């Protein structure tokens, strides 16, 4: 077990390093001239600078060193929690992110919770229904759920619940009320994925002999599903939650823009718009870290939730 733990953590670190490296190379090597982008982002007219000033700026951004040297010095800073300075805002990237983290975390946390509740609940009900037409409709509905652009659902909600009905605020990030619409918007695509896969999973479980036994004992369909089906069918959700972290982070960028919430997603949108390279690098690397950490936790939780895994012979 200890060896498994260590190898899993090692793997996670390797993936993280790879993600950082790829992002670094995209942002610093893909553009022909990162210096121009950086100077423009900080609001300096590049043409007005003398060659001496250009050289000075190059040294200030650390672009005068060799590629590998730049990469390693940036990586070392990153490991010490120093993400550099924002070119546009002139603040440290870490303070910018720290100020916006709570807003995004509460949004993402509530969205993940809602998506699991909605997705599992939907699949649960859909698998109990026996009337064919309704069943077909319910089975196809999740696929509609991830055909919708998430940001468009947000606009629909604003129009419906904020403007027409006036129940909830349309924008802003004060109080729990302003969190409801964005969280539901962010939850819908993921919950559609959970629902789609769980409906299949429930279908498989219903074919198991122990379900037949349960019905033969005289349980109703509802009782059989609640006592014997649910726990067996719902286990895959854990893996899915881990894999959906990426979609939740991506969705947060759009949803925060739609609802004008000052979170990390909105920071990402503004930084890309102004080509604020250090901020973009930090946000992309951090969201990869979130993905890797959550999936590591999911992997480590599995044996605790499903004891069969630890007793199974190892297949490698």
């Amino acid at each position, binding site marked *: 077990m200890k060896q498994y733990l260590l190898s899993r953590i090692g793997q996670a670190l*390797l*993936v*993280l390093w*790879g*993600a950082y490296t*790829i*992002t670094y190379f*995209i*942002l610093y090597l*893909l*553009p022909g001239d990162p210096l121009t982008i950086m100077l423009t982002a900080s609001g300096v007219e590049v043409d007005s600078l003398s060659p001496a000033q250009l050289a000075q700026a190059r040294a200030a951004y650390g672009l005068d060193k060799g590629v590998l040297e730049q990469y390693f010095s940036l990586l070392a800073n990153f490991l010490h929690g120093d993400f550099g300075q924002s070119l546009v805002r002139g603040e440290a990237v870490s303070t910018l992110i720290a100020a916006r983290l709570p807003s995004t975390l509460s949004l993402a946390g509530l969205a993940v919770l809602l998506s699991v509740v909605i997705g599992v609940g939907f699949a649960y009900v859909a698998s109990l229904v026996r009337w064919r037409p309704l069943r077909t409709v319910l089975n196809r509905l999740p*696929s*509609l759920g*991830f*055909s*919708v*652009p*998430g*940001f*468009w659902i947000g*606009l*629909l909600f*604003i*129009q419906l619940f904020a*403007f027409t009905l006036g129940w909830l605020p349309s924008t802003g990030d004060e109080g729990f009320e302003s969190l409801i619409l964005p969280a539901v918007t962010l939850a819908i695509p993921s919950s559609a994925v959970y629902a789609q896969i769980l409906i299949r999973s429930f279908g498989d479980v219903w074919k198991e002999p122990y379900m037949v036994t349960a019905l033969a004992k005289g349980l109703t369909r509802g009782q059989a599903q609640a006592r014997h089906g649910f726990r067996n069918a719902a286990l895959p959700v854990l893996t899915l939650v881990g894999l959906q*972290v*990426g*979609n939740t*982070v*991506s*969705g947060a*960028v*759009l949803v925060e*823009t*739609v609802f004008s919430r000052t979170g990390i997603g909105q920071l*990402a*949108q503004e*930084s*890309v*718009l102004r*080509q604020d*390279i250090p901020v*973009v*690098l930090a*946000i*992309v690397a951090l*969201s*990869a870290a979130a*993905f*890797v950490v959550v999936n590591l936790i999911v992997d480590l939780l599995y044996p605790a939730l499903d004891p069969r895994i630890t007793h199974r012979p190892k297949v490698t």
Partner: protein
Amino acid sequence: MTILAPISTGSADRQALFLGSAALDLTAIAGAGRPSSGWTLAGRVRDALNPLLRRPGFAIALSFLLLVLVAALAPGLLTGVAPYATSPADKLLSPSAAHWFGTDELGRDLYSRMVHGSALSVKAALLAVGIALVSGLSLGVLSGFIGGRVDAVVMRFVDVLLALPGLLLALAIVTAIGFGTIPVAIAVGIGIVPGFARTTRAEVLRVKTLPYVEAARLGGASWTRTLLRHVLPNSWGPVAVLATLDIGAAIIATAGLSFLGFGAAPPAAEWGTLISNGRNFLMTAPWLSLVPGLFVMLVVFSLNHVARTLDEGR
């Protein structure tokens, strides 16, 4: 002698005969598209589609997609109204017989703008999936077919790409290479490479062990030939389904990126830009973003439905 008889006729006749036979050959070649490929691709496609087309849902989804494709290739066929023609007197009209989707704040016809926007959005989605298909397929085949260390390296690379959330990877690429329809399409395409690489690799690994591959190798076929003639055609199915699904995903992703403001520069408008423009008039003219969004949803839902039906029929 009788065989030579036609040749020994006058030279003018011979030329006519020659021309005639050449013309005949040409028609044979032109006609070859129909009867002979009835055996191969077109016929197979027709055979595969016939039972599916009897399902009303599939037929409706497919014809809707064809309509969108027509809109993308020849927008003039579906609307006679110019997409950029402003008419301030008709601004913010709600949908009606004259303006099917209503008009925007400058009096431009939204239906016409949607139809003309299809060209950008559909091409962006196809370009994205094309990039993903080519690079994902090569990575997958490389790693599945060669195996060993190459496989390990490629798959670790794919794992790393999977850990980067798609939209954020796309945002990083867009930061580096600039804004516009084509950079956005490239960025989205790179984001969906890992899925293709994984699916292709799994299929290649499955097909590689089948008896007919072994038979081809024993029969003396080179690895390249085995790969191109036996492994690739048989690994194609799941990849094609994934490609169909991913066109939908690419449409949503490009719409998202152009909604954030990284797409085509105005007045050209992709679907995402149209949804974004309508945001400012959500209170007074909600159809300006709701109708384009509904349209995008229908396109993606149709793609998902087609992919799912193909997958079930396989």
